[in-house]
């Protein structure tokens, strides 16, 4: 991790770079954004981006890249920003990451590149995510993308699911000359990027733009196809002539706690709550037909501490919730959510009730939620996840009046593909078994990755799996060896 001696495009002497403060991301004021769905972060200007880029120490051994699930060449693209070569910087990122405008916004950089940045040991780490976002947005604004031209191989690949892992596979394989068709169950492309992540964190136009780019590269898309129901994996391979299939069907059905009252009206799963808002635009009812409960002035709580939980409760706040709680059974330090989202949520006035868990939901006697009995927790010994296990404190129960509760405590495996594909191996939790290295499943020519293999994880981890899968699908299609 010693700074490099090679001639750098960065004019700032290494010693001076640490003195430059991390450039603050301009954002909508908390009081303002708590009432709209516009994006929270407004993006760096070219000037801010270049100032931030100058902070890079250009380590010879770039631990930032080593810790990126898709291996973005961070020091190289950052140096191009310093030199003002923004389009070249974007192209450099695209060598490894087909969705930079998306990862620049939603990737938990603190767990990957920025978490390993040498600067972070003394001062704040380099704003790698902000810089990635800047060049991706710049490229889009300039509208001058370079389309790769490759000779066709004649091989055809079916990608099941248009979420981050499926799109990564499609983007990588189309650049190898294979024909790629992506099948999506919903009416809109993007998977969790459209039904899960709200507009204020990832505007839909960003996703549409990335999809347009893929179309321009030749990727074909077909919506309204539930693979396993509308067509099976075997039919795709045997009747429709696909040489390989990638399964990236994503997270499955929401989990519930199994406590009394969870079936009451007013208790949502986070998936349903977010799908109504993001995919179906229920917050624009009655212009859009899909309804949702009126949250104005109501007490709303989300149960859980991940990104999904924060997306849900911050959406509730924007829809007028009077009180908006996060109820999480561990402490803030254990929250799996992106750190920036936690900060943003705190600024917006979300009320965090840490070390707390509901034990029962109450009704008005007519089937509608009126509140939750909660219990306070303390942290005991570490559990299987390595995090300290929350233990209820006897006699600490208290009641919280609530009109809406949103369960964001994880998901289970969607069974549709597994149950309709003979010979496709699954683990005891129902997820598809795939090699961690090659993403190969137990079926020849069939690969899988993302949440349907790992259980609920992040966009960037799903993209990492897509990257590995694309590489091994290409090998398989080239050599024919399994």
């Amino acid at each position, binding site marked *: 991790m010693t700074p490099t001696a090679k001639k750098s495009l960065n004019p700032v002497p290494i010693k001076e770079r640490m003195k430059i403060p991390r450039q603050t991301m301009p954002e909508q004021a908390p009081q303002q954004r708590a009432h709209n769905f516009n994006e929270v972060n407004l993006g760096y200007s070219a000037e801010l981006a270049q100032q931030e880029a100058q902070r890079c120490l250009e380590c010879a051994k770039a631990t930032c890249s080593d810790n990126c699930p898709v291996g973005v060449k961070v020091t190289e693209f950052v140096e191009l920003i310093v030199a003002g070569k923004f389009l070249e910087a974007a192209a450099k990122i695209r060598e490894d990451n087909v969705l930079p405008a998306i990862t620049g916004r939603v990737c938990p950089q603190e767990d990957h590149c920025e978490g390993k940045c040498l600067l972070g040991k003394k001062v704040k780490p380099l704003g790698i995510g902000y810089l990635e976002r800047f060049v991706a947005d710049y490229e889009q604004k300039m509208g001058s993308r370079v389309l790769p031209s490759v000779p066709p191989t004649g091989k055809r690949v079916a990608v099941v699911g248009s979420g981050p892992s499926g799109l990564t596979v499609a983007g990588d394989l189309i650049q190898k000359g294979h024909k790629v068709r992506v099948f999506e*169950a919903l009416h809109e492309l993007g998977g969790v990027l459209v*039904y899960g992540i709200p507009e204020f964190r990832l505007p839909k136009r960003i996703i549409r733009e990335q999809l347009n780019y893929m179309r321009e590269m030749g990727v074909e898309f077909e919506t309204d196809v539930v693979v396993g*129901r509308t067509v099976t994996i075997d039919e795709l391979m045997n009747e429709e002539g696909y040489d390989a299939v990638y399964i990236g069907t994503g997270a499955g059905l929401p989990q519930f706690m199994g406590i009394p009252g969870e*079936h009451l009206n007013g208790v949502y*799963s986070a998936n349903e709550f977010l*799908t109504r808002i993001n995919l179906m*635009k229920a917050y624009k009812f*009655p212009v859009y037909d899909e309804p*949702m409960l009126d949250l104005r002035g109501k007490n709303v709580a989300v149960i859980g501490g991940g990104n999904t939980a924060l997306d849900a409760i911050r959406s509730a706040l924007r829809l007028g919730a009077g009180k908006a709680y996060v109820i999480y059974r561990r402490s803030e330090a254990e929250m799996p959510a992106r750190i920036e989202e936690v900060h943003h949520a705190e600024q917006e006035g979300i009320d965090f009730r840490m070390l707390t868990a509901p034990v029962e939901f109450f009704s008005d006697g007519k089937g509608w939620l009126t509140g939750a009995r909660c219990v306070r927790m303390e942290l005991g010994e570490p559990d299987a996840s390595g995090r300290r296990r929350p233990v209820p404190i006897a006699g600490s129960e208290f009641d919280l009046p609530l009109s809406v509760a949103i369960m964001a405590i994880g998901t289970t495996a969607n069974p549709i593909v597994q149950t309709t594909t003979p010979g496709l191996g699954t683990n005891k939790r129902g997820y598809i078994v795939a090699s961690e290295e090659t993403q190969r499943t137990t079926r020849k020519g069939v690969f899988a990755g993302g949440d349907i293999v790992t259980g609920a994880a992040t966009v960037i981890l799903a993209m990492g799996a897509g990257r590995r899968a694309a590489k091994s699908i290409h090998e398989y299609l080239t050599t024919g060896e399994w």
Partner: protein
Amino acid sequence: MFKIIHAQFLAPGIKRFVIEAPRIARKQKPGQFVILRIYEEGERIPVTIENSDPERGTINIVVQSVGKTTHLLNSLTSGDSILDVVGPLGKPSEIANYGTVVVVGGGVGTAMAYPTAAALKRAGNRLISIVGARNKELVILEKEMRVTSDVLMITTDDGSYADKGFVTDKLRQLIQNGARIDLVVAVGPIVMMKAVADMTRPERIHTVVSLNPIMIDGTGMCGGCRVLIDGKSQFACVDGPEFDAHRVDFAVLVQRNAMYRDAEQQSMAEYQGRTAEGGRPCADAPHGEHACLAASSGTQGEQR
């Protein structure tokens, strides 16, 4: 876009559409359904598949006007298109030779029950069908059910056709007469399915119902369609829609299907306001205004 090849009212407010959907037509099995969205701002609703023709690449769906979306859908006609149709969804009915099977269809539920009844007949069962409707005009698929059934009984709530009474009256008679019944399949309004379940439970007759909770994606993602089975959450879109009737908590289903009643009424009122101003055509309805402007008392979930 999914093109409507043919559209015809089967009864006031109940319309059958033949839709070009080759992939779905090829895969559809009895007991399954589709989810559709008519236009960009539209909601996703589950709809019954009554039949399919894999050769022609078409499916038949049957829709009852209940709320705004179904009224709008039933104002469409041949040549129009539906933006999204996805399916076939849900697990197919379990078809086997059980012996004697009673299939009960209530109202528009008869359209869902029909393909299952026909498949059970083809599997060698003796098929007794009971079809119920509010009145004569609302009895649907009588001809189809008669052709496929060994015995067909029809009831109307008001006695305007066949026997006055409810489907459960006929089922009770069968049970009281000591008829051997190996399986009951009931599809219709929740109250009807619950009444059938309550009747067959003490007789220990295996009974299957097709549940119709509110649903959004229908593909095992959102969890909106959760139903309480033996006190545990299950999901109608991937675990159902058919469940053992004796394990279903019908009260919770009724309660959850009423979750958006206010919004549904608001939608419907606005839709009626617009159609009254000449917004959407209703001309092809045999009973014109009646079919289009029928009061909305149902819910989003009640299409199936």
